[in-house]
């Protein structure tokens, strides 16, 4: 009885004293997405977004467990309670915001097109005519490709992860890959990527589809958690921790404007 009262009191005060920290299951896509999150051979996840997550979790005093979930099922996994938060480079879009709540954005990357080296494909509807374009299932790029390229492209092929798309681009089975520029960067800079492919620049913007930067996804009813995450994010931006983390992985600013 007494312990219940104490717990209730602590909860009511919203104090995060030396009580046991809550455990949050943070969903990332099971498909690696370097440099944001990728599993190493020992099974632990690392990357820019994992570092950011750890920083947020320390500040909101939660114990976070990285939980890999197939990307194309990650929103249902959140709404049905299998995970408590998504930190998987999920772009904030109006369509998604109807289903889940988003934190403030923590980075923004343009969507761009990668093609075979020397290809004359351009990141426009006419530019991709006849081409096989690959997009990741459940990504904003899939929506974008369906909206703008469906009529002109030879085919839009849907992959479960970006790595497999890029592999197929290298194999020549795709003429172009539409994807997040920052996520495609490691491949573009790799030896294999340099040999076969080139970056063609960003696609024409459409915030309705391409959204307003990446944020953490939360259940709509978890408003209190959302407020804490946003507060932590603001602090991380302000005190320079954000830039420290970013410098480990990128040479450019990725917050956008």
């Amino acid at each position, binding site marked *: 009885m007494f312990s219940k009262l104490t717990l209730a009191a602590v909860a009511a005060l919203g104090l995060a004293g030396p009580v046991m920290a809550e455990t949050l299951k943070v969903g990332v896509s099971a498909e690696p997405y370097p440099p944001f999150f990728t599993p190493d051979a020992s099974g632990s996840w690392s990357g820019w977004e994992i570092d950011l997550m750890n920083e947020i979790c320390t500040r909101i005093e939660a114990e976070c467990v990285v939980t890999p979930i197939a990307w194309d*099922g990650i929103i249902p996994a959140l709404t049905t*309670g299998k995970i408590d938060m998504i930190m998987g480079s999920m772009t904030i879009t109006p369509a998604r915001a109807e289903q889940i709540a988003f934190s403030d954005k923590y980075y923004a990357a343009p969507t761009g097109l990668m093609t075979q080296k020397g290809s004359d494909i351009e990141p426009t509807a006419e530019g991709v005519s006849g081409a096989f374009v690959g997009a990741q299932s459940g990504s904003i790029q899939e929506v974008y490709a369906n909206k703008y390229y469906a009529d002109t492209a030879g085919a839009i092929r849907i992959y479960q992860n970006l790595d497999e798309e890029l592999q197929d681009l290298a194999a020549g089975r795709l003429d172009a890959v539409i994807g997040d520029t920052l996520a495609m960067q490691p491949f573009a800079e790799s030896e294999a990527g340099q040999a076969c492919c080139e970056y063609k620049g960003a696609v024409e913007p459409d915030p309705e589809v391409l959204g307003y930067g990446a944020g953490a996804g939360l259940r709509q009813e978890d408003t209190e958690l959302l407020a804490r995450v946003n507060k932590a994010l603001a602090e991380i931006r302000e005190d320079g921790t954000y830039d420290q983390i970013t410098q480990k992985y990128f040479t450019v600013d990725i917050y956008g404007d």
Partner: protein
Amino acid sequence: MFQSIDFSLLALDAPGWGGALLQGFWRSIQLAAGGYAMGIVIGILGASAKLYGGLVMRDLAQVYTTVIRAVPELVLMLLFYYVGTDLLNRAAQSMGFAGIEVDGLAAGILVIGLVQGGYATEVIRGAIRAVPHGQIEAAQAFGMSPLKVMRRVTLPAMTPHAIPGMANLWMIATKDTALLAVIGFSELTQVTRQAASSTRAYFLFFLSAGALYLMLTLVSNVILRRYEVRARRGLIAAHQAR
């Protein structure tokens, strides 16, 4: 192409993926064994419902096995994965709990078990029907309770008849765990896919994983054959007499 295969990628320690692969393999075995065990329990319940249950129970069991056998495992798994834990959470919340933590392993076992249960029901039902009815009647005549009849007579007597079908189901269970990769479970196939796409050594990793699965199948085969011979001890004479 064969010069370019780098076997050091399979090393057990961290830059190599061998250890991760074995861990995934172990998880696959856990998922298969758990799902299989759950499938047997559901199978016994389902078979009892079909053979001894009331009209409604019988029809419900029939609907269950029909759906399981007609819909792709991949689709069933997706559905059970979302519906199963969603319902569990809602039920828990309505009773005042804060929501049950369904961890990955339990959810995977649940999903495999529900699929296995549909097939196990049919196998066990067939096996029970192969038990001569006189044996069960004799047990009832001794005044055994229905549960005791089940435990002491029906189940042991039907076991040899169920083994071939159940052995087949075990093989299916081990291979069905691979489908969980599509949902994002970290079992052998998923780990293999991660290893392959981050190192781009697709042949090496998919072949290695294939060898692990094959090894599991072959070893299981040997064990199950031995067990079948043992369980059939009393039946061989009867078979030859026919």
